[in-house]
């Protein structure tokens, strides 16, 4: 049974995501596995420095989505099932940096689909309590694992359906943010596909640095950041960095 990691990366006018990808791939190779497939476009690919033996899949990203008024090419995640060449796939955001091998073991589970429901704010402000921003508990599509089969296919088909009718579901679940978010698309799809009941989740909280944290240092083992006048660091802990300036550190 083949196992691997699937990453999506598209540069935008404002953010050089390919630089973030370069960092992420290095850590994935070190801590998770060597079987990596990057979904990208030619424009981004030609800027990448050589990353060793990894697979590329080229697609034209669907445009039109924005975040804080800036271009945000994130709406293609529902293609993960079709684009993944692996039987078991770990899909990660490229701004989730695996400084440990904690995620590797999830490729060995027998589950059809696992996703994380919780994030942990490393600045201690509990800023990811998204429950109050919608009528549905949000999931974090930052990290999820699926095994190809009928159940996973059904979930991804449901995500596609939710995406097609996102405005309707956005209103129905009274989701505060009006732009398209994979987190909510997956949350809605999982709830619908599982008969409005619970579904299996990853028992981890995604350690996250909010956008207002400035990254001061980035090494192979961890990051140091500044929030207001406080400087902190962590090492040997996976971190989701929301400030895209990490590309330039």
């Amino acid at each position, binding site marked *: 049974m083949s196992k691997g990691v699937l990453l999506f990366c598209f540069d935008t006018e404002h953010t050089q995501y390919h630089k973030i990808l370069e960092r992420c791939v290095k850590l994935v190779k070190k801590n998770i596995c060597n079987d990596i497939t990057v979904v990208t476009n030619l424009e981004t690919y030609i800027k990448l420095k050589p990353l060793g033996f990894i697979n590329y899949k080229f697609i034209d990203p669907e445009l039109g989505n924005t975040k804080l008024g800036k271009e945000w090419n994130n709406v293609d995640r529902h293609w993960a099932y079709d684009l993944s060449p692996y039987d078991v796939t770990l899909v990660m955001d490229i701004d989730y940096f695996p400084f*440990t091998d*904690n995620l590797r*073991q*999830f490729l*060995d*589970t*027998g*589950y059809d689909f*696992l996703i994380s429901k919780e994030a*942990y704010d*490393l*600045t*201690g402000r509990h800023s990811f309590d998204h429950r109050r921003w919608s009528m549905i508990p949000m999931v974090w599509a930052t990290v999820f694992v699926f095994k190809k089969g009928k159940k996973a296919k059904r979930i991804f088909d449901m995500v596609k359906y939710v995406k097609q009718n996102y405005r309707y579901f956005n209103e129905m679940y009274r989701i505060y943010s009006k732009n398209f978010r994979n987190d909510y698309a997956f949350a809605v799809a999982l709830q619908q596909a599982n008969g409005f009941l619970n579904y*299996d*989740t*990853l*028992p*981890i*909280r995604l*350690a996250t640095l909010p956008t207002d944290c400035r990254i001061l240092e980035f090494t192979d083992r961890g990051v140091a950041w500044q929030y207001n006048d*406080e400087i*902190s660091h*962590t090492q*040997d*802990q*996976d971190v989701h960095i929301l400030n895209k300036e990490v590309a330039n550190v």
Partner: protein
Amino acid sequence: MDINELKKQSDLSYDRAIAKRNALEKANSRLVVVYNEHLFRADPETICLVSTLKELHTSFCVLDTNNNPVEINDPKDFLKVLVARNQESLNAYQQVYKTFTRRDK
């Protein structure tokens, strides 16, 4: 002690509290183990349960983190995996904790 010194101590305490909280979170995330294709937390509750059941049965069922039942046929091996992960995680936490106590002295 002047107010500036108090402010400095307060800032240091805040830094230490956040660092300790993050170190504990790191330890907790390391407690998750995959065994027999299922997910478990190598926490005291799971270890105690497995240890107790091992004394009475050669195979038994436990619930994974998603409340799915899992049959354990090699309790000794399972307990070994759980204890190893628990201690690995807590030892790492202890190392970080020691740096806080050193700073206090």
